[in-house]
């Protein structure tokens, strides 16, 4: 069953220009069909979308808030994309970002001698190690024991979420407070604001560095060749002298490290303290984002920006024209569905085309 799923997911993969066109097409489709629903509400879709757009990009403030949503979605989207390319499903980005946030907070609340950037760097690094470790476990179990990583990653999400709950209620609880929250992290552990007067932090730049890194590794290095080979055809990869198990474990670990940045950057750049359920669903949204993005780092960024904008613009749309916020989930779902539908149609077409081969 997972192999069948894998084969099917393969057809989502896009390269080159189509990696950007795919999500753009999906977004247009989603907006178009959702327009029908908006008309049903007695509202002009053009007006609703104008409010949505203004809410997401209208002024510097709302624009940076969109970007603040975009950052964690992009990190988790990249994490899922990388794992997919290596033939493993990382449904555990949620858990990985939770343990990373926990680890980063822990480092962030203790004073550290030395220049400030070392403290931030250390907090990010420890978060990455935590996220990577959280992904290493299912990767290792899958490669060496054949245990389905979809199950293990989902289950480990609950462990991670409850671990954070435990932490903010006990050892990481702010002293003298009864609310389940950690103390705020020190100034020295915070990600610097890169646009004065806004909340946009340095994590934004890190997104692009890592997206480029993922792209470069996948298509310009021998590691990427190994990852993509294992993702495309494990048996052929083995025949080609690739250590499939090692590649699977490392891909999953790297994916966890990417996902960790979503949690760490949120704590170190935005919230400055750890709360229970401090960000919900970003790990799961990542799956939709990766698919919409054609499992390509560039497409993933486009899709993440779209998701971020929808979330951020939805409220002002509701206030201005009375279209409920949940319409954005409809748009998201339609966009992803349209991609799935195109892939299905393509598959059917090719299956017909290949029947001529006589097999």
């Amino acid at each position, binding site marked *: 069953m997972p192999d069948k799923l894998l084969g099917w997911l393969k057809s989502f993969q896009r390269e080159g220009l189509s990696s950007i066109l795919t999500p753009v097409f999906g977004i247009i489709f989603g907006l178009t069909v959702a327009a029908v629903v908006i008309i049903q509400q007695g509202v002009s879709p053009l007006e609703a979308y104008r409010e949505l757009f203004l809410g997401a990009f209208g002024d510097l403030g709302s624009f940076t808030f969109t970007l603040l949503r975009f950052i964690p979605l992009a990190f988790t989207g990249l994490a899922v994309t990388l794992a997919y390319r290596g033939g493993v499903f990382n449904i555990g980005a949620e858990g990985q970002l939770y343990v990373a946030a926990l680890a980063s907070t822990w480092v962030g609340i203790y004073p550290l001698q030395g220049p400030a950037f070392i403290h931030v760097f250390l907090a990010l690094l420890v978060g990455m190690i935590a996220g990577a470790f959280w992904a290493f476990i299912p990767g290792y179990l899958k490669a060496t024991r054949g245990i389905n990583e979809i199950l293990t990653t989902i289950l480990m999400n609950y462990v991670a979420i409850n671990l954070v709950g435990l932490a903010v209620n006990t050892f990481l609880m702010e002293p003298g407070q009864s609310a389940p929250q950690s103390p705020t992290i020190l100034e020295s552990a915070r990600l610097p604001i890169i646009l004065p007067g806004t909340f946009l932090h340095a994590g934004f730049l890190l997104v692009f560095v890592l997206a480029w890194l993922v792209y470069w590794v996948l298509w310009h290095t021998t590691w990427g*060749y190994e990852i993509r080979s294992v993702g495309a055809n494990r048996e052929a990869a083995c*025949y080609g002298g690739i250590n499939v198990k090692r590649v699977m474990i490392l891909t999953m670990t790297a994916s966890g490290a990417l996902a960790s940045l979503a949690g760490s950057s949120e704590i170190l750049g935005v919230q400055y303290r750890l709360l229970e359920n401090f960000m919900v669903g970003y790990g799961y949204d990542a799956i939709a984002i990766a698919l919409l993005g054609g499992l390509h780092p560039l497409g993933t960024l486009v899709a993440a920006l779209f998701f971020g904008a929808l979330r951020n613009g939805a409220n002002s749309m509701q206030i201005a024209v009375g279209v409920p916020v949940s319409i954005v989930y409809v748009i998201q779902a339609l966009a992803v569905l349209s991609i799935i539908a195109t892939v299905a149609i393509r598959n059917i077409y090719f299956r017909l085309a290949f029947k*001529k081969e006589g097999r």
Partner: protein
Amino acid sequence: MPVLLELRGICKSFPGVKANDNVDLQVASGEIHALLGENGAGKTTLMNCIYGLYTPDAGQIFWEGREVKINSIRDAINLGIGMVHQHFMLVHNFTVLENIMLGLPSRKEPFLDKGKVAREVRKLMEAYSLYVDLDAQIWQLPVGLQQRVEILKALYRKARLLILDEPTAVLTPGEVKELFHILRQLVAQGYAVIFITHKLDEVMAIADRITVLRDGRVVKTLEAKAADKKMLARLMVGRDIAYEKPKTSATPGEEVLRVENLQALDNKGLPALRGVSFTIRRGEILGIAGVAGNGQTELAEVLTGLRKATGGKVFFKGQEITNWNPRALYELNIAHIPEDRQRVGLIMDFSVKENTLLGVYYRWPFAKGIQMNHSVIHEHAVKLIQEYGIRTPGPEAKVRFLSGGNQQKLILARELSRKPELLIAVQPTRGLDIGATEFVHQQILLQREQGTAILYISTELDEIMKLSDRIAVFYKGEIMGILEPHKTDIETLGLLMAGAQRLETN
């Protein structure tokens, strides 16, 4: 004899290709009608139209003179058409009887009526001397008997026309003889048989009439008596083919590969190799003959590091290499043309260019450190495409879009371009047309002249006889004998392949 099935002007197109173009065909009761053609000639498509898997774009189908529409397999079965597929459609952990009953309504719904069906099937078995143990589970039966179950299944469903798709591909020469005997009996009782094949000898041996297909069209329908092999080959390929290429006599050099008492398990954990020993020398081709599934695949996998040996030793030029990993073996310059080119030998979703890198991607000049050198890789791919005449839209085209022959050429190009010292080729011509087969044979012989030691595994005896300097016959994971092709004949090989006798090996 009355015409049972008639096709008039059948056309079937798929995007970009006309698989069947205006095909006419008549099959009479009491005849064995051979459908001859290369791979891709449209034989299987045509049969799928008859069997209700495809609907033809144009044309008419007549059954006993009445026009019929066959929209599903059920329609075909109800008319009296039965098909024995190349890959059997049997449930492996069901018994023979259960397989025969599968999908049929029972007279004791919701319970099975095994007793009654068993009696009826036994009657059929007696009538056509098609004996099989009804209580045996399919996996316990040899392939020849599994095929019988398929035939019984069709007969029990009251088929009067049997379509056999490449039925001899998996059989020993002895089993082929038995199959032919059964088919003769069936047609004597008024059944009709369509026999799909690309093997000329079989056509000459069994067919009453022959229809030759090429590029989706009927080239000719003729009486078997009026045909000869040479003429059929010409009709099939559309040109004269050089049959025998003179092979230079062997000049084997020093020993390259030595295998001692090698043992291994198959995927189910059962012994697949039970102590195999042989050697191959420089410039020598050792052919491994045997019916598919007697340990040949496992042998190739053990020798290339894809499967662990559970006992015995392998030496390469004196160095023990037992259970080395694939990359280490690759670096010793051992090349492997795997049995399943689409699943093992190639990554179908990768481009031609990327597939030329399999196994060498990490080496200079293709990579420097971890960074890949795309311009060198591109040039290398273009060079291979030219040298081996791979027909592809370009090095960036996905391998999925290449024909089977060109996919195999790509594997040959990749594996042979690095001048291997030992080549392990498993069924390298399977599914290829005559032209591509000829190309593969030439390349293999060329390697031999250049001093490569070659292990050539094939289930096609013709091929083994033609290429090998020595032949080792496999049966149930053991070597039944090692002999020289000019000192033996197909019958002897056939007996060894069936495990009926064993030669003393040196």
